[in-house]
């Protein structure tokens, strides 16, 4: 089997995940895009592990670790998401902008105007 096929699949999944990460507004869909990118990393880890076939099984072990960390990340991410929903009633990522440095003067959700430093 060609090594480049799983690597191309990994590249495609990473690109799709990064598109979703940039374009989605709903926090749950952003988390799904992060999952796609983590899976892209997993595919290339497993592919290189099967290719090198070393005694440590480093790629497959790390892939299992990544799966575990993804589960922890989803748990914490959903807890934060529910907290955000309880306190604001929305989980749109472009409405939680109070901590952002203000870019435009006529920003609708702007909490504090930028002081002239």
């Amino acid at each position, binding site marked *: 089997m*060609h090594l480049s096929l799983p690597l191309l699949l990994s590249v495609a999944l990473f690109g799709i995940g990064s598109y979703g990460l940039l374009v989605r507004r709903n926090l749950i869909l952003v988390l799904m895009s992060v999952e796609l990118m983590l899976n892209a990393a997993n595919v290339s880890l497993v592919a290189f592990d*099967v290719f090198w076939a070393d005694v440590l099984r480093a790629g497959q072990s790390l892939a299992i670790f990544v799966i575990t960390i993804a589960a922890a990340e989803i748990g914490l991410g959903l807890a934060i998401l529910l907290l955000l929903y309880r306190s604001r009633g929305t989980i749109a990522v472009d409405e939680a902008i109070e901590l952002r440095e203000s870019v435009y003067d006529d920003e609708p959700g702007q909490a504090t105007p930028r002081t002239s430093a």
Partner: protein
Amino acid sequence: MRVSEQSLLSPTGADLVFALFGLVAIVSAVMVVSTKQIVHAGLWLAVSLGSLAGCYLVMSADFVAWMQLLIYVGAVVVLLLFGMMLTRAPIGPSEDLTGKNRAAALFGSVGITGVLAVLVVDAYGSTMMNVDEPVGTGSVIGEAMFRYWVLPFEALSVLLLAALIGAIAISKPRQGTK
């Protein structure tokens, strides 16, 4: 490791099966990031991650494939669907799931994909990997895990516990607020 060369244009049987699973994974991933119905995005994510498990099986990584099915399709997708339910996600199609910067995002991600794909094909275009040996069964992975990776494994169990307690602490309603 077996370094034998064969052009990408002459596929083997394993190549074809892998390409089939990979195509399903890519198409359903595109549906995840482009569908207008949020529940459908979760179900397409299950399809994508499940066909990735098929890809792992073709690459003779059995144990990772079953872990993928158990944890991703079994737990993560269900958690995401729970999250949709608890945030009262709209059932029908909704137009506000996607932001306004679609062109810039498309440009950036297509750029990343193009550069990485050219790099991969240039570097490994005709390299073959051996998928006939049992390199990913439960006994092989278990031996590697508990002989060489014990310390990361235990650290990861502590991390999972910390994440669990953290999730409980975050979602517990505080006194005084509300």
